[in-house]
């Protein structure tokens, strides 16, 4: 799809390095991937932030945290921000009617993507509020009759589970108590004036997702394989966390044995990724999701999460492979565990001196 390549380029040329100066050589891409083979004179593109110095903007491979905005969605939101300034709940004038229309169009776009009726879509501020509303709202509503909620260890969204559970018992409509009280918007389920341009953006994003899902899946799967194979070609002791088959291709969570996650992240400062290690969480516990997947504690500390998206390029993947391999090798040189394994010691059976 030529349009995707154009948007990829367009998106990158809009994000400039903090230094301000944009070199003509780099106008098509400011990521480390494109500048890999060209050492530039001086350090005019170096970014220094929070005590860290990096030679350019890092590659973005953290799609499970956030994703960059599709320029087509931005266009729709931009236009909506300027023109749809009426309150979508104002009944009395054209501005309100137009804003309401924009919201209802978006509602249909969202519903179509997930095979629901528009009447089943409620807009709130995000996933956290939605989860809270459904879990607490449903339980409060049914508190006299049902007190049991079923969930899974790896799930932190009880939304669909709760509703489906109740629906299966023959209830055609799931009722809930609202979390936000006020003017009764969204049929009383969530009071508060909607931010029209956000809703419009959501709708357009859903429509695009529906149209391009097959293509996106193929592209992302291809990149996922390129990343995994690239890394496995050069390194042993690479474990995929979770099933490789029943998995969203854009998430590649890898454990690099004998190397701790936070130290690897710090070495990979030219790649934006996440880790499931204890040190990167506020609680000093390794990711409970990894533990629930059956990952050993010491391997949970070594995990790195790569997120691949619609706009990720092969260049970025290749560069990520190169940087990852280099850092893992360097840290393994420093790792007493790797040394022991190389000497043939079975590290699973050692008595460590805990403290």
């Amino acid at each position, binding site marked *: 799809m030529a349009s995707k390549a154009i948007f990829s380029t367009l998106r990158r040329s809009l994000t400039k390095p903090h230094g301000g100066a944009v070199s003509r050589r780099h106008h098509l891409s400011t990521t480390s991937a494109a500048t890999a083979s060209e050492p530039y004179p001086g350090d005019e593109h170096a970014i220094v932030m929070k005590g860290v110095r990096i030679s350019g903007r890092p590659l973005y491979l953290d799609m499970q945290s956030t994703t960059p905005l599709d320029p087509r969605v931005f266009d729709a939101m931009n236009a909506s921000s300027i023109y749809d300034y009426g309150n979508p709940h104002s009944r009395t004038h054209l501005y309100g009617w137009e804003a309401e229309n924009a919201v209802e169009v978006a509602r249909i776009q969202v519903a179509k993507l997930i095979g629901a009726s528009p009447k089943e879509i409620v807009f709130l501020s995000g996933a956290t509020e939605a989860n809270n509303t459904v879990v607490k709202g449903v339980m409060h509503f049914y508190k006299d009759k049902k007190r049991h909620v079923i969930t899974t260890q790896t799930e932190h969204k009880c939304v669909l589970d709760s509703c489906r559970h109740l629906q299966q018992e023959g209830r055609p409509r799931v009722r809930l108590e609202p979390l936000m009280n006020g003017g009764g918007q969204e049929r009383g389920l969530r009071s508060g004036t909607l931010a029209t341009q956000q809703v419009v953006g959501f709708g357009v994003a859903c429509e695009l997702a529906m149209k391009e899902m097959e293509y996106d899946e193929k592209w992302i799967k291809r990149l996922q394989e390129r990343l995994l194979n690239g890394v496995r070609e050069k390194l042993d002791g690479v474990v995929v966390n979770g099933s490789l088959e029943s998995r969203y291709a854009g998430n590649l969570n890898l454990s690099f044995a*004998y*190397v*701790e*996650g*936070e*130290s690897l*992240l*710090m070495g990979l400062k030219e790649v934006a990724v996440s880790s499931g*290690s*204890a*040190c990167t969480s*506020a609680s*000093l516990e*390794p990711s409970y999701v990894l533990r629930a997947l059956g990952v*050993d*504690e*010491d391997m949970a*500390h070594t995990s790195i999460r790569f997120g691949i998206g619609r706009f990720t390029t092969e260049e970025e993947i290749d560069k990520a492979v190169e940087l990852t391999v280099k850092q893992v090798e360097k840290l393994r040189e*420093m*790792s*007493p*565990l*790797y*040394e022991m394994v190389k000497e043939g010691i079975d*590290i699973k059976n050692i008595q*460590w*001196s*805990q*403290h």
Partner: protein
Amino acid sequence: MRMISNVGTGVVGAPACGDLMKLQVKFDGSGKIVDARFKTFGCGSAIPASSLATEWVKGKSMEEVLTIKNSQIAKHLFLPPVKLHCSMLAEDAIKAAVKDYQKKQGEANGETFEA
């Protein structure tokens, strides 16, 4: 290196906790540390803590290095509260390495050394 009698090796921590430090100190005939090396499986605070330990023990005597406190390491590295245990581990590693050296010395002299 583990077999040589003038080198003490200390291994502290546990992979399940995400921290494992191995510290080695080499003594000369006069009881001074002339070289130190580390290998660490650990985070962005554990690795520098053990690295700093190897820098600080060089040129010091056994008694001197046993007075190195985790708080000094933490202060030098500006470790935040959540990472203080890394400096503690580094202090433990120094003590473990010295203890190992003493044990080897005791064995070399035909004594059994009770710590």
